[in-house]
């Protein structure tokens, strides 16, 4: 699903988090929002998900050309993965993943057998078969984040939004999950946006990188384009490249 962000401005108190941001994302791409902390990248992701709403009326969010600006997060149903997993600690792994089916109206809810099958399929995809009855607190950080991925994917969202998904994990697990995400994206072509402050991560995983600073987009391009032709002093400085 393609995503269009049009003229989004968002302030917290008086400090602007996003200033008139516009961005087009093609269907099937894996995009990294890259920038220092406080740059507004997470806010942009949350605005796309419907967890925050832009200040100005003319700010718009379009999913596949359809205006979703006035829909709340539960109507947009973008798959969302949080930095600190945000798993439901009082539910086991199975119920966490099945949650998006449990909240459906009875008439729309798939039968229990179909839910079971879907959860098993997802657990296979994230390599956690047999973990259905574990509680989140009994899992390692990497395992928890994989459950969070499975939960976000359960009801087949058309877009996947990841907020620093590897930020809380140690280096080895980080690398594995990074590779897993790239392979997963190659096999599904699910439009994916992930937020990171780590340029290696952005360049290794993403098709396109969006550099953000002080609430504005500084440059958009493939990793090679951005690296070889930094658009301005901020990009060059942030990436540690000497300007020609």
């Amino acid at each position: 699903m393609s995503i269009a962000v049009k003229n989004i401005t968002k302030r917290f108190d008086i400090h602007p988090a996003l200033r008139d941001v516009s961005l087009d994302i093609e269907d099937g791409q894996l995009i990294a929002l890259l920038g220092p902390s406080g740059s507004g990248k997470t806010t942009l992701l949350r605005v796309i998900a419907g967890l925050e709403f832009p200040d100005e009326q003319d700010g718009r969010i379009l999913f596949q050309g359809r205006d979703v600006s006035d829909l709340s997060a539960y109507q947009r149903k973008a798959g969302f993965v949080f930095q600190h997993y945000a798993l439901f600690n009082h539910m086991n792994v199975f119920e966490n993943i099945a949650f998006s089916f449990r909240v459906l109206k009875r008439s729309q809810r798939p039968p229990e057998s179909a839910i079971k099958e879907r959860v098993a399929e997802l657990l296979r995809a994230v390599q956690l078969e047999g973990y259905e009855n574990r509680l989140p607190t009994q899992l390692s950080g990497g395992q928890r984040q994989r459950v969070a991925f499975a939960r976000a994917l359960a009801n087949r969202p058309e877009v996947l939004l990841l907020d620093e998904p590897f930020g809380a994990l140690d280096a080895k697990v980080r690398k594995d999950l990074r590779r897993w995400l790239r392979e997963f994206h190659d096999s599904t072509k699910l439009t994916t946006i992930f937020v990171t402050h780590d340029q290696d991560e952005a360049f290794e995983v993403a098709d396109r990188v969006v550099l953000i600073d002080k609430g504005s987009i500084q440059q958009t391009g493939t990793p090679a384009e951005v690296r070889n032709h930094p658009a301005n002093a901020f990009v060059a400085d942030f990436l540690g490249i000497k300007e020609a």
Partner: protein
Amino acid sequence: MPGATTLNLNNRQPLRATGDSATVRAVLIGSVVAFFILFLLLPLVVVFQEAFSKGLAAFLETFRDPYTRHSIILTLVIAVISVPLNTVFGIAAAWSVTRYRFKGRSLLITLIDLPLWVSPVIAGLLYVLVFGAKGWFGPWLREHEIRVIFAVPGMVLATIFVTFPFVARGLIPLMQAQGMKEEEAALTLGANGWQILMRITLPKIKWGLLYGIILCNARAMGEFGAVSVVSGHIRGKTNTMPLHIEILYNEYQFASAFAVASVLALLAIVTLILKTRAEWRAEQELRATRSAKTP
């Protein structure tokens, strides 16, 4: 003189890492235990001793008295009305101040505590001023033949006022510490507000909530001052257990007064046990969220 001895020993002994000598520690702990026994435990023992001073039969006889029975029932009725209401108000208040940012938010947090620092008698008088015969709504209420003051509705209102803070106060720090990432996750998974409250938030806060409800209930059943002002002390009509105890005591029916008091004391002990348990589980609840945030 114990004070002098302490000083002496203190000078002789080298200070430990905590900065207190063993003697200071012993004196401190000893005085706290002595205080506890003298002011808390002993009165509790006396209550039960006096209650049974004329034997078990006299003790049970107290509870055959229709006025005593009525006071117990009225106490329960008031608690059954005010505790659920304050549970709902408390959840709503805690939800509002922890989930939303709005003007006057910190004022609202302060106001939630208001009943704790206003004397209960003042609280009762406020209701008399508002709903009493000469109060704001007095004439209107009389026209419609609704009795609030010197009747059960006023006692319920006074109890709600006095017990309002307990649920909200227990929940606000817990909900603040837990944050709302799980709720946001549920939102992106298609859950609506009601589903989030029932399936995510309430399970997350259940022990903290129970802790607040237990305290709220204990205070509702034990409240004297505010209820006393609006009650009018009509035996068999507007007498709760604490008010009934006072009447019995003033009429020199000591054994009966202490018998009823022992029931309230027992309630306090049960509350303490339940509270300790709920408090412990609430801490576990908080620790679970914390550990979930570290890999």
